[in-house]
C-alpha cells in the first residue's frame, strides 16, 4: 500500500517554516511533531485551533502519526462545537493559547526542548489514512462532513505547487492572511509548502501594515496567499508593496481591475485558485490574461443537466459544485456566479437554507428568513438581511441567539422585525417579495437619517 512522506524536504537544514523572521528547519519540525505525538491524549479526533500556523502544522503532523483525525468545522460557535461532540465523542481541542470558550477537553500545545539530531527521517503516512474531516454547513442545520485522505490531499497540493512554481523554487516562503483551519489556508499555505519543499510563515498578518512587516522580515523570495477583500484593503492602504514572486488569491472571484492593479503594484503574477471545501483546489487562472480556468492535472469540470460536477485527479468521487459553469475548449471553463441558495462572504460559505433553519430554531421565532441582496460590491463583502416574525423578542435577544449558532460574518444587517413574511399561497417566499421588503427597509432608513 502506498505511503507518502509527511514533508517533501530532504535535508535536516531544509526550511519548513519561518517565524518572526527566523527559519525553522525540517529537523526541528520533525522533532516537534514527534514530541507532540508522544504527549497527545489517546483520542481519535482533534480540533486543532492553534493560531500559530507552525504549531498548527506540528499538531497536524502529530495527529497523523497517532492516527488521529483533525476536524475542521466552518466556525467555533457553541452550537457547532455541540454538533461536533455529537459527531465524535472523543473529540478534544489542541490550542496554543487558552482555547477560550470552546466546550471541549483542552490540551495545551506541548513545548518541546529536545534538540533534533541525526539524519532526517521523514515519517511516511498511508495514502488511505484519514487526515482531516472538513465540514460545510448543510442545509438542514447539521454540519456535513467531508473526509480528506492523506493521498488525495497530497495529490491536490502537489498539483497546486506546480502551478505556484514552488516545486522549482523551494526557497520560496508562503505568507498567508487566511487561517490554516480554512480549506484554502490549509492547502495553500501549510500543505502546499510541506509537500513542495518550500516554506510557510507561521504568522497570520491582519492589517495591511502587518502584512508588509511580515513580508519584510523574511529573507527569502515570498509568495502572498490572500483573499480579494484583504487584497483590496492592502492595495488601498499601502503605496509600496514589498517585492513578491507571486500573489495567490481565492475564495471569491477577483475583479479584473484589482487583479491588474495587484500585478502592476507588486511586479508579480497573480494566480487565482478555484475550489471548494468538498473538493479542495480544482483550477487556476492568470486573471490578467484570461477569464478561463485551467483544471489541475487530471481534474475534469463538466456541466450535466444544468449542474456542474468535478471529478478525476484528486477528487475521489464526482462532486456537485455550487457554481454555475460553462465549459470551454480543452477542458477549461468559465464561472457564471453561484447557485441561488449559496452565500460566500469573505471566504466563509453557508446556505440561505441553513441560516434560515438556525433562525427558525430559536425559541420565540414564529417565522424568519435570510436574504442576500443583489448589489454585491466588487471585491467587497455583501451582508445578509433577515426578516423575522418574533413577537416578544427584541432584536438584541435575537442577535445574541444567532451569535451562538452562526459565524458572525453571516449575522444579518439589518435584522428586521416584521408582523408577517410575504409568503405565497404555496408557503414559498418569492424573491421579489423579499427584495421589496428590503427596499422598504432602505427607504425607512433614508427617512430616519
Amino acid at each position, binding site marked *: 500500500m502506498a505511503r507518502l512522506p509527511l514533508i517533501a524536504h530532504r535535508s535536516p537544514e531544509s526550511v519548513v517554516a519561518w517565524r518572526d523572521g527566523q527559519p525553522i528547519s525540517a529537523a526541528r519540525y520533525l522533532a516537534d511533531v514527534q514530541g507532540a505525538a508522544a504527549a497527545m491524549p489517546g483520542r481519535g479526533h482533534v480540533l486543532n485551533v492553534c*493560531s500559530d500556523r507552525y504549531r498548527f502544522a506540528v499538531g497536524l503532523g502529530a495527529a497523523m502519526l497517532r492516527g488521529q483525525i483533525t476536524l475542521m468545522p466552518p466556525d467555533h460557535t457553541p452550537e457547532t462545537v455541540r454538533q461536533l461532540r455529537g459527531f465524535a465523542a472523543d473529540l478534544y481541542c489542541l490550542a496554543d493559547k487558552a482555547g477560550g470558550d470552546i466546550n471541549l477537553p483542552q490540551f495545551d500545545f506541548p513545548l518541546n526542548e529536545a534538540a533534533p539530531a541525526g539524519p532526517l527521517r521523514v515519517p511516511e503516512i498511508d495514502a488511505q489514512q484519514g487526515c482531516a474531516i472538513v465540514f460545510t454547513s448543510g442545509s438542514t442545520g447539521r454540519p456535513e462532513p467531508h473526509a480528506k485522505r492523506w493521498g488525495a490531499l497530497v495529490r491536490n497540493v502537489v498539483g497546486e505547487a506546480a502551478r505556484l512554481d514552488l516545486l522549482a523554487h523551494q526557497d520560496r516562503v508562503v505568507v498567508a492572511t487566511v487561517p490554516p483551519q480554512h480549506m484554502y489556508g490549509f492547502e495553500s499555505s501549510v500543505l502546499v509548502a510541506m509537500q513542495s519543499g518550500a516554506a510557510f510563515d507561521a504568522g497570520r498578518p*491582519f*492589517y495591511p501594515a*502587518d502584512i508588509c*512587516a511580515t513580508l519584510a522580515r523574511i529573507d527569502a523570495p515570498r509568495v502572498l496567499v490572500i483573499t480579494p*477583500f484583504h487584497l483590496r*484593503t492592502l492595495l488601498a*492602504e499601502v503605496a509600496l508593496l514589498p517585492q513578491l514572486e507571486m500573489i495567490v488569491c481565492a475564495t471569491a472571484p477577483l475583479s479584473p481591475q484589482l487583479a491588474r492593479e495587484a500585478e502592476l503594484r507588486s511586479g508579480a503574477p497573480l494566480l487565482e485558485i478555484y475550489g471548494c471545501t468538498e473538493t479542495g483546489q480544482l483550477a487556476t487562472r492568470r486573471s490578467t490574461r484570461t477569464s478561463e480556468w485551467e483544471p489541475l492535472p487530471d481534474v475534469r469540470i463538466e456541466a450535466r443537466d444544468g449542474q456542474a460536477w468535478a471529478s478525476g485527479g484528486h477528487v475521489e468521487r464526482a462532486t456537485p459544485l455550487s457554481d454555475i459553469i460553462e465549459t470551454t475548449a480543452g477542458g477549461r471553463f468559465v464561472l457564471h456566479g453561484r447557485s441561488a441558495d449559496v452565500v460566500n462572504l469573505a471566504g466563509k460559505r453557508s446556505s440561505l437554507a441553513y441560516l434560515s433553519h438556525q433562525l427558525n430554531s430559536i425559541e420565540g421565532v414564529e417565522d424568519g428568513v435570510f436574504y442576500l441582496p443583489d448589489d454585491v460590491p466588487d471585491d467587497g463583502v455583501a451582508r445578509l438581511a433577515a426578516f423575522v416574525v418574533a413577537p416578544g423578542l427584541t432584536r438584541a435577544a435575537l442577535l445574541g441567539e444567532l451569535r451562538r449558532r452562526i459565524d458572525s460574518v453571516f449575522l444579518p444587517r439589518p435584522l428586521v422585525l416584521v408582523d408577517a413574511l410575504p409568503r405565497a399561497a404555496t408557503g414559498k417566499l418569492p424573491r421579489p417579495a423579499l427584495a421589496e421588503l428590503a427596499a422598504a427597509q432602505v427607504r425607512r432608513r433614508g427617512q430616519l437619517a
Partner: protein
Amino acid sequence: MPDPTESVSQAAAPDEALLAELARLIVSALNLDIKPEEIQPDVALYGEGLGLDSIDILEVALAVSKHFGVQLRADNENNVAIFRSLRSLADFVAANRSA
C-alpha cells in the same frame, strides 16, 4: 523643550470631538443602521457590543488610515485590543496621529 509627560497625558485623553469624529467615520465606513451618537464610548465594538467582526475592523482600519494617517498593527487577527471600544480606538489614534 516640551515636557514628555505632558504630551503623553494629552494623548491618553482624547477629546469628545475625536470620539465623535471616529463614531461618524465608523458609521459611514460600515454603512451602519445607527446614528454616530448611539455608539457609547466604552461599549465593545466587536462581538456582543456593536457587533463588528474582522471584516468591519479592516474597513475601519482603512478609513482610519486614510482619515488620520494612522496605520493599525496587531500581532494577529485575534489581537484587536485597539477595537475594544470607541475610546480605546480614539486613544490609539490620538497617540499615533501625526501632529
